[in-house]
C-alpha cells in the first residue's frame, strides 16, 4: 500500500482523493439523496415504456446498490430504502404497470436466489433441480384453488375451489411442503459427493416436471401438459380502504400493488432470516461443511442434520414463492418449471457470488433485468436493422447464460459482490497455485489452501 502512495498522480490516486473528499461529513448524504431524487423525478415525469425509462429504471435500482455500498448511517439507509421501494416504486408502478411487473419478478427471483444461495453458496451442495420445489409450491396452490382438487378428494368435492382466504394458510403450507420435499430428496442423496448430488438433483427436477406432465392419468391431478388455468388469487381485503381514500385504481392495478408489496415483505423477511442464519451456529456449520466435510465431522458438526436443514430451508423458500407465483400468474404448466429456470437461478447465485447475500440479490436483479428488459430491448432495436429472425437475442438465453457461467467461473469465480471468506480463499489459491502448476494433484492443492482457510475462519 505504502508503495502505491509514493507514485505521483496516477488516476487511481486521484480517484481515491475524490472518494476521500466525497466521503467526508454530510457530503455523501447529499450526493446519494440528490442521485435518488433526480432519478426518481425523471422516472415519474415520463413513465412511458422506452429506452430512456429502461435506463432510468436500472439507475433507480442502482440507488439501492449505492445505499448498500456507501458507508452511511443505518437509519438514513433504512429511510431511503423505504421511501424508494415503499412509496416511489409503487407510485411509478401505477403509472406504468410493466415496470411494476418487472420489479415484482425481480423480487420473486431474489427470494429464489436467496434460497438457492443457502444450498449452493453456504452449504456447498450443488442443486440443479431447485425449480422442482418452486413447482411443488405452485402446483399445491394451483390444485387446491381450482376444481382440480375435487379429482383427488372426491368426497370433499363441494368444498373446492378453496376460498381466497386460504391463500395465507397456503403460504405457510407451501413453506412446509417445500421443506418436506427438500428433506425427502435430501435424505437419500446426502451421502453422495458434490458432483453426484448435482446430477441426482438434476434428475429430480426432471422427474417432477415429467410427473407434472403425466399425472393427468389415471387420476387427473395436474391436468397434464395443458396446465392449470384460473388459479385463485388472494382476497383484496384492503380494497374498501383504498376506495375510501378516493384513490382511483382498478382491480388489476390493486392486484399488482398487492403482489408487489407481498413479494417485498417476503424478500425483507427472507433477507433477515438468511442473514441471521448465516451468522449463527448453523451458518458456521454450513460453511465448515462446504470447506471440508471431514474436518467438519471431526469438529462435531452433525453433518446429515445440517445438510438436510440447508436443503429444507432452501426448498421452503422456493415452495412459498411457488404459491405466490401461481396466484400471480393465474396459469401454470409444466414447461414453466424446466431446467433452464433452475440454471437461471444458479446463474444469479454465481453472478452475485456464492454464499453472499447481497450478491444473490444483485445477481437476481441483474439476470431478471437482462431477461425481461435488455434482451427484448435489444431484439426490438435489432428488428429495425432488418436482422434475420434466427438472430433474435431473446431466443438465445441458453447461450447467454452458458457464456455467463463459463466467464464467471474462469475469470471471477468469487462473483460480483463476493462473500469475504470466499474472496480471501480464492485469492489465496491464486497466489499459492499458479496456473503453470496445473499438474499438481488436487490433494496437494487442498493441502496448500487449507491453512489459509483456517487462519481466516
Amino acid at each position, binding site marked *: 500500500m505504502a508503495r502505491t502512495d509514493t507514485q505521483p498522480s496516477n488516476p487511481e490516486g486521484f480517484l481515491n482523493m475524490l472518494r476521500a473528499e466525497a466521503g467526508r461529513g454530510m457530503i455523501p448524504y447529499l450526493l446519494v439523496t440528490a442521485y435518488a431524487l433526480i432519478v426518481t423525478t425523471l422516472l415519474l415525469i415520463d413513465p412511458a415504456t422506452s429506452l430512456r425509462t429502461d435506463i432510468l429504471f436500472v439507475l433507480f435500482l442502482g440507488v439501492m446498490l449505492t445505499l448498500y455500498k456507501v458507508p452511511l448511517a443505518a437509519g438514513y439507509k433504512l429511510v431511503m430504502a423505504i421511501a424508494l421501494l415503499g412509496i416511489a416504486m409503487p407510485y411509478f408502478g401505477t403509472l406504468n404497470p410493466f415496470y411494476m411487473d418487472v420489479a415484482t419478478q425481480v423480487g420473486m427471483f431474489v427470494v429464489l436466489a436467496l434460497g438457492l444461495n443457502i444450498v*449452493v453458496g453456504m452449504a*456447498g451442495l*450443488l442443486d*440443479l433441480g431447485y425449480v422442482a420445489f418452486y413447482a411443488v409450491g405452485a402446483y399445491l396452490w394451483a390444485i387446491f384453488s381450482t376444481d382440480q382438487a375435487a379429482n383427488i378428494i372426491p368426497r370433499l368435492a363441494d368444498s373446492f375451489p378453496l376460498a381466497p382466504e386460504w391463500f395465507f394458510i397456503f403460504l405457510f403450507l407451501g413453506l412446509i411442503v417445500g421443506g418436506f420435499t427438500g428433506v425427502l430428496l435430501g435424505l*437419500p*442423496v446426502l*451421502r*453422495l459427493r*458434490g*458432483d*453426484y448430488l*448435482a*446430477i*441426482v438433483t*438434476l*434428475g*429430480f427436477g*426432471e*422427474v417432477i416436471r*415429467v*410427473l407434472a*406432465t*403425466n399425472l393427468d*392419468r*389415471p387420476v387427473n391431478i395436474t391436468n397434464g401438459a395443458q396446465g392449470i388455468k384460473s388459479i385463485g388469487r388472494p382476497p383484496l381485503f384492503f380494497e374498501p380502504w383504498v376506495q375510501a381514500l378516493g384513490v382511483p385504481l382498478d382491480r388489476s392495478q390493486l392486484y399488482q400493488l398487492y403482489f408487489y408489496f407481498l413479494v417485498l415483505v417476503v424478500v425483507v423477511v427472507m433477507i433477515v432470516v438468511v442473514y441471521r442464519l448465516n451468522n449463527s451456529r448453523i451458518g458456521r456449520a454450513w460453511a465448515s461443511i462446504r470447506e471440508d466435510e471431514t474436518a467438519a465431522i471431526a469438529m462435531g458438526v452433525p453433518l446429515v442434520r445440517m445438510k438436510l436443514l440447508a436443503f429444507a430451508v432452501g426448498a421452503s423458500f422456493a415452495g412459498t414463492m411457488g404459491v405466490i407465483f401461481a396466484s400471480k400468474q393465474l396459469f401454470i404448466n409444466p414447461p414453466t418449471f424446466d*431446467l*433452464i429456470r433452475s*440454471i437461471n437461478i*444458479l446463474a444469479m447465485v*454465481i453472478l452475485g457470488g*456464492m454464499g453472499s447475500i447481497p450478491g444473490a440479490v444483485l445477481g437476481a436483479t441483474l439476470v431478471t433485468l437482462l431477461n425481461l428488459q435488455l434482451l427484448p430491448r435489444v431484439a426490438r432495436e435489432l428488428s429495425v436493422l432488418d436482422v*434475420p429472425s*434466427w*438472430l433474435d437475442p431473446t*431466443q*438465445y*438465453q*441458453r*447461450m*447467454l*447464460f*452458458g*457464456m*455467463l*457461467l*463459463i466467464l464467471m*467461473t*474462469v475469470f471471477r*469465480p468469487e462473483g460480483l459482490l463476493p462473500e469475504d471468506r470466499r474472496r480471501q480463499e480464492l485469492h489465496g*489459491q491464486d497466489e499459492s*497455485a499458479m*496456473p503453470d*502448476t*496445473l*499438474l*499438481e*494433484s*488436487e490433494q*496437494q*492443492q487442498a493441502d496448500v489452501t487449507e491453512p489459509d482457510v483456517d487462519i481466516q475462519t
Partner: protein
Amino acid sequence: MAVGVDADKKIKVQRSVGMILKEVFGPLLQILIYILICTVSLSLFVVLVALLLRGSREDIDLLQSTLIILPQVIVDGLVRGFLFATIALGYTMVYGVLEFINFAHGEIFMVGAFVVAGFAVGLASLGWLEGFPPLLFVLFAVLLGMAVSGLLAMATERLAYRPVRGAPRLVALISAIGASLFLQDFMRMIALATGLGFNVRVQTPDFGDPLQIAEIPIVGERLAVVSIDSRALIFIVSATIMLIGLNYLVNVTKLGKAIRAVAQDRPTASLMGINVNRIIALTFLIGGALGGAAGVLFGIRFGTINPYIGFLPGLKAFTAAVLGGIGNITGAMVGGIVLGFLEAFVASYLSLFTEGAFAGANYADIAAFSILIFILIFRPSGLLGEATTQKV
C-alpha cells in the same frame, strides 16, 4: 547372447498376442454375458407378470400380447443399450482422468447427430444421396461426426475446463454446465442460420426393408415376427466395432498406457515424461469422437433430431456410467446395456400392464433416474465396482 535376445522378443510377442486378444475381447465377453442375463431375466419377469395378471383383462390375452412384442423389445433394448454405452464411454474416460463430470458430453453427442444431417443435406444438394451406397454413407458420416465432435470436445476442454482445473470441484462443474448450455444454443444458431431448421429430419439413402430373422408361432394363428431394422443392425454392429477399437486403444497401445497412467496418478505420470495436458486433451478427443459417432448413428436410426436432444441421453448415459462403476470402461459399456434393456422393457410393458394408465415412454425416464438414485445410495461403486481401482 543373441539367441537370448531373440527368445526374449519371441516371448514378448507371444505374450502380447494372447494379452491383446484377452484385453480386447474380454470386455466384449463380459458385455455379452450381461446382455444374456438382462434378456433372460427381464423376459422371464414380464412373462411372469403377464401370467399373474392374465385373468384381470378380458379384451386381450395379456400373455399373448406380451410374447408378440417381446423380440422387438429386446432389439430395442440392444439399440438403446449400445447408444448409452457409447455415450457413457466419454463420461467415464473423462471422469477417470480428471475426476470431473463432463456435463457438455450430451451436447457433443447432439452435434454428431447434426453432422450426419448436414452431411446428408450436402449430398442431397449434389444429387448423390439417392444412389449412395448405405454402408459407405454410414462410414463417411461416422468418420466425419467423430472428427467434428472430437475436436469440439477438445476445444471445450481447452476453453472452459482447463482454466478452472485447479479450482474447487463445484466451479469446474458449473463451467461445464455453462459449456453445455452454450453448445445447445450455438448448434441451434448454426442450424437456423444454415436453413436446416430447429427440428431436422435426417435424410439417408434407402436402407432396405427390415430383416426378418424368424417367425415364431404363438398360441393360435398369430405369428411373432422377429425382425430387425437394418439401421438398428448397423447401429449395433458399428457400436461393437468402436468398442473393440477403444479396448485396443486403451489396453494395448502406448497412448492407452499413458491415459491409464494419468488416470491413476497425475503427478507421477508427469514425472514419467508423460505430457499430461496432451493426454487429457486426447482423452477428450477420444471420448468426444465416440459421442459424436453415437450421435451420427442415433441420427440415422431415429430420423428426427433437434438441438436439445443431447440432454436426456447424456443424463442417462451418465447414469449408465455410474451404474457400471464410473471411471471403468468395461463398466460403462455394461451399465449402458443394462440401462438400455431396463428402459426398453419399462417403455413397452408399463402401459400394457397398467391398461394404459401410465404411458410407459414417459415413465421410462423416471425409471432411469430412480435407478441412478438407488445405485448411488446402495452401491455407489457400481456393478463392476471391485474393478474401480483400475481406472479408465
